């Protein structure tokens, strides 16, 4: 079930973290921290029990993007008593969304991350760009932050899936998604700016990760004698 306002409800804290980062204004630190701590849930995975049943993978993912930004800007960690480490929470989300329980198995959209996390919610069979795009975005950023190539591999696989399904077309248009029941052939051609933007940001992180050889993704500088 999609609750209107669930997206921006998570992203607004990222907007304030960005503001803090570029201005140095720490006035709202406490409020931002409380919001994140309130949402992390018992398993520190942004699936708190009062929201969990209605959570989509995109909802969980938007919160993870806010936490990733907190890690990348050294936004102050909550008091130790809360046991919240921003990077760990992002990794928890990423690992959960990697699991096949959240994904389509078999068929043309095999491996695609579903919109919804639970099968009883409307939209369970919608395999959409924003859910996969956020996962890609997080994977790229986790790769760059940690240097762990596995995240980069998962991110790359995800982007390649979006290309193969035609969610990203050869002109750079970014479409919204398709339904598993139609084998993901019924691509919804609506273009929403957030889909394009989440992919662009993730692609920039992948470009940086690969170009600066954060891990061994480029060939070695020498070729041995034949």
């Amino acid at each position, binding site marked *: 079930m999609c609750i209107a306002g669930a997206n921006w409800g998570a992203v607004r804290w990222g907007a304030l973290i960005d503001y803090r980062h570029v201005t140095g204004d720490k006035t*709202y630190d406490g409020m931002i921290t409380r919001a994140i701590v309130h949402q992390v849930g018992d398993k520190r995975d942004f699936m708190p029990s009062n929201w969990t049943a209605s959570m989509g993978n995109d909802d969980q993912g938007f919160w993870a993007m806010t936490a990733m930004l907190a890690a990348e800007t050294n936004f102050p960690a909550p008091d130790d008593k809360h046991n919240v480490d921003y990077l760990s929470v992002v990794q928890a989300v990423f690992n959960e969304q990697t699991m096949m329980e959240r994904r389509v198995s078999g068929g043309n959209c095999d491996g695609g991350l579903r919109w919804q996390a639970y099968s009883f919610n409307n939209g369970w069979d919608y395999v959409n760009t924003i859910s996969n795009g956020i996962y890609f975005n997080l994977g790229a950023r986790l790769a760059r932050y940690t240097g762990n190539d596995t995240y980069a591999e998962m991110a790359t696989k995800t982007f390649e899936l979006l290309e193969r399904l035609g969610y990203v077309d050869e002109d750079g248009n970014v479409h919204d998604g398709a339904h598993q029941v139609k084998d993901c052939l019924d691509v919804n051609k609506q273009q929403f700016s957030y889909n394009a933007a989440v992919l662009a940001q993730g692609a920039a992180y992948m*470009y940086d990760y690969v170009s600066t050889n954060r891990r061994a993704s480029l060939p070695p500088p*020498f070729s041995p004698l034949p």
Partner: protein
Amino acid sequence: MRVLTSGLQTKQDPKWKKRLDLIVDRTLAHFYPNGVAYEQACETHKTCNVDMRSFKGYMHRWISSATLLAPHLADKVRPVFETSAEAAVRQCTGGDNARLCGFYWSTGAFDGLTSAVHQMNVLGALTGLLMNKDGLPLTNTTGGTSRGNPDAGQSLDKLNELPPITQGDRAGAGIVTTIILGIFASLFAWMSIN
């Protein structure tokens, strides 16, 4: 003969550069008619729901972020984002304080829609312009202090039936609006925008 390539790493991974450039070029062309952010799928017929009305703010912030790690984008992104931000601020003339922002930036006039989301969008456009290479996202080798746990989240909640759904905290919208209006007061003065 020994074949040498330069030991210097040039910042030019071609595959990701191509993907990135393709999407950014198309995004600027499609979502910035006359240089002003426009949610094409719903803005014309005023069918954007509250989430859709928040997307242009994300677009400004996330693509600005992308230009930090792919500086070659700045020459094409910056002029558009400046134009868009100016249009955004120009219509922040609503409410009792004459500083509330609406959603429809391209009209040049405040549209009467006061919502935290619309303030957030303009905040995003402005903060995007303030991002610079002194604030690159950190990593665990450049000063990032978050420790991480690669094994986090290894089990999923299994929900077999639909439990009662609660509303959650939705009271934050008014608070966020108040915060952002306060931020604008200083940001506008600082950037000499009128």
